[in-house]
């Protein structure tokens, strides 16, 4: 009894200390950002323009706009106003320290896990979230990994006290790691796996047919439930959470997001998507440059990259850098990704590197703003600076894709978010260490 009491007091005390220590990270209210160069991404760039934020939305943008009373005014003279950037695939909130498994919730055991939800494990207070957003990334798709069907992703804003406050959409898609064929001699390494390429090939074919069978099962499951709900005469079918998770995919309400890289596997994945009649987004797609017209023909958007990767042993040296450019030129809608948590902040450099190797700069910017928003069905609320959209806004001292640019002000869903992070705090602390 007494111990329980002490424990309870202890918890309350710790709670009180934590509450005092947690600084106020964001400020709500109306904001006027004036005198800045506004890169709307949608239309023309507005020189010396004004942007009004009311509540969580962009209220107005332009030259002659009505300025609300009591709004906080931010002078952006000499600065640039951009929509916040979006990482098309990452593990933010699921992944803290790579080598410490207790801090990693990004992968589940099991081969087919369409019922697993990223949102369930999302940690709103991951140290990587503030560190990512201060480099201009304001939203991201949080993706589960592992197995062949890894689960359901969640699209988040990089600010919020709870999962509900952060998540804009969940599920966004069901993630599939498409079974990989052994590499032929052109992409040597994989064929040398134990068991040899024939074994791998057989296993892959078996996995693909299992995947098809699972989708067919889900279709039958969906039909059984529909006919039950129509008549209510038959006994209710047994609930199956795994198949149930696939029903929205079967009904084309939810896309599959297929992680696939090698040319042959991409072709197989296209065939799979076609025959299953499901909506699809592809992710990774390292060999996209070899099949770009095919992807364009099938109207499959691509979450391309990461760009900053080593190419395959026999690929041209710039294969990963040029990939986005070739896909874009062929008419494929692209978005850049980091597939990371600690390096989400470096998303702009993936886009920038693609631009250094041929992708037009404007397209590179779109591929970290409006294109990912559109790909995930959020084009009406994110990705550009337009009245009515969510106020995810960054104010910078330069092109946000340039390494040397700094974010000076940051707004997520209309909240002015602090630029302090673990890194800036350690910097401040140790630069002030008395000289020895």
């Amino acid at each position: 009894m007494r111990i329980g009491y002490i424990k309870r007091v202890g918890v309350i005390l710790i709670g009180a200390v934590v509450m005092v220590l947690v600084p106020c990270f964001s400020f709500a209210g109306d904001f006027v950002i004036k005198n800045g160069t506004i890169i709307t991404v949608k239309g023309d760039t507005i020189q010396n323009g004004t942007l009004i934020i009311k509540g969580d939305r962009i209220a107005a943008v332009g030259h002659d706009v009505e300025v609300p009373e009591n709004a906080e005014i931010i002078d952006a003279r000499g600065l640039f106003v951009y929509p916040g950037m979006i990482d098309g695939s990452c593990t933010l909130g699921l992944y803290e320290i790579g080598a410490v498994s207790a801090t990693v919730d990004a992968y589940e055991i099991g081969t087919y896990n369409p019922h697993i939800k990223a949102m369930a494990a999302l940690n709103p207070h991951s140290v990587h979230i503030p560190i990512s957003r201060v480099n201009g990334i304001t939203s991201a798709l949080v993706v589960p990994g592992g197995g062949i069907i890894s689960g359901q992703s969640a699209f988040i804003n990089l600010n919020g006290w709870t999962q509900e406050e952060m998540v804009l959409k969940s599920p966004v898609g069901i993630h599939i790691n498409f079974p990989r064929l052994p590499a032929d001699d052109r992409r040597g390494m994989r064929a040398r796996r134990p068991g040899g390429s024939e074994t791998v090939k057989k296993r892959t074919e078996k996995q693909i047919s299992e995947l098809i069978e699972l989708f067919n099962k889900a279709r039958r499951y969906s039909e059984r439930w529909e006919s039950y709900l129509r008549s209510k005469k038959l006994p209710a079918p047994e609930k199956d959470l795994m198949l149930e998770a696939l029903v929205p995919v079967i009904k084309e309400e939810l896309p599959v997001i297929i992680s696939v890289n090698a040319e042959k596997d991409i072709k197989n994945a296209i065939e799979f998507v076609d025959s299953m009649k499901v909506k699809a987004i592809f992710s990774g797609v390292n060999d996209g440059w070899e099949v770009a017209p095919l992807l364009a023909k099938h109207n499959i958007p691509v979450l391309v990259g990461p760009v900053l990767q080593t190419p395959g042993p026999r690929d041209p040296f710039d294969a990963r850098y040029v990939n986005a450019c070739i896909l874009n030129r062929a008419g494929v809608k692209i978005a850049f990704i980091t597939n990371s948590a600690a390096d989400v902040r470096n998303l702009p450099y993936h886009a920038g590197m693609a631009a250094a190797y041929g992708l037009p700069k404007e397209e590179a910017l779109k591929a970290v703003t409006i294109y990912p928003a559109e790909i995930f069905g959020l084009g009406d609320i994110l990705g550009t600076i337009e009245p009515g959209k969510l106020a995810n806004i960054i104010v910078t001292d330069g092109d946000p894709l340039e390494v040397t640019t700094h974010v000076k002000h940051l707004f997520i869903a209309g909240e002015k978010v602090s630029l302090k992070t673990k890194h800036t705090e350690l910097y401040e602390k140790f630069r002030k260490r008395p000289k020895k």
Partner: protein
Amino acid sequence: MIKRMARKGGSFYFLIFSIMITIPLFAQLKIEGKGPDLVIKNATIMTVTNGTIDGGSIWIHNGKIKGVGKQIKTPRDVRIIDATGYYVIPGIIDSHSHMGIEGGINEATGQVTPEVSIQDVIRHDDISFQRALAGGVTAINTLHGSANVIGGRNAVIKLKFGKPAEELFIPGAKESIKFALGENPKKSNIPITRGQRKFPASRMGIEYTIREAFTKAKEYLRKWDEYEMKRKGKIKLTKWEKTAGLIPPKRDLRLEALADILRGRLDIICHAYRADEMLMIMRLGDEIGFKVGSFEHCLEGYRIADEIASHGVVASIFADSWAYKMEAFDAIPYNAAILHERGVLVTCNSDSPERVRRLFQEAAKTIKYGGLSETEALRTITINPAIRLGIDNRCGSIEVGKDADLAIFNGHPFSIYSRVEMTIIEGEIYFDITRAKTTEKVVEGLVKD
């Protein structure tokens, strides 16, 4: 018209047409003229040590830089590269790499293996050399891994892809033994079943491993010193030695390498993350009598910058890599800024065949985080690593008399939109994007895949 061409001449005309429309998108560096010497003219030259020259020229003779400046005299019969609009920087030097090593990089069968050398296993045809060349890198310090406490010897080489291994070594470069502290040698991140656990499993055990090794080395050194003195007649022989003759101590290559560290002939390159372990080895060095040359990664260096500076240790760091291990969780990208401000020589390294291709972006991050100047940032991938590796007499800056190791960019090297167009080592062109097998050329069918 395009359609008609495509139909009529098969794909040939169409191909020519597509090349015509794609090529003007990228200006190209062309080499004109004939002659043994090479002149790069009208370039923005970032010399690193003598400022930036706009519209300058570099004259390369016999693999060396013979002239640099706005107006320089050159012989008549030279090959000329008109680099109007291009930037030239010294060839990038990666102070921490594992490229070009045949087989494994760790001789981790024991905790102390300074007798092995990376110099014996250099692989000259590593494809990652070609890729690093495409990122403007001309020289690397390629290292033994960090799986054991005291590893093997390094190799400082130029990326002369295609040349035999022995032509890659840079004469006079500092020779170092790799040491490793923290999670790697204590094997924190490798699943090991209980029964197989081996010493050391803690930072205490690592300290002891080094102490024990140097204690043996000191004893070895004492025996050899005594032998030499006796041989030279500086101390008296024992009665037994007078009759049987002077017998040299047994040669032990492991202890010999450690003794060479104590003699100051070999340097220590020390993989270290946390502040506490860096303080530990500096203290141990003061006590035993060895000096650490560089801390590799040095993630928590910012916490003890003064101590690192006063011991004269170089910080060979990642610009912003962090959180992949527990000991990397307090790393900050402002590390370079604090270390530099407090007088530590900083180099930005790759430790990866991927990151090595964009070290110029890593250097740019030291400007972003903590505000290093452009020159200071550029130094971290050129002259600073050259100083660290003892090759600053011939590499690391664009100066008359130095090796003509150069990287030519199509824009400012710190702009994300710039890329390397040409990389030159000792006057020879090792990478030229116009002649390289690029993805676009493969797609166009211009080169065989």
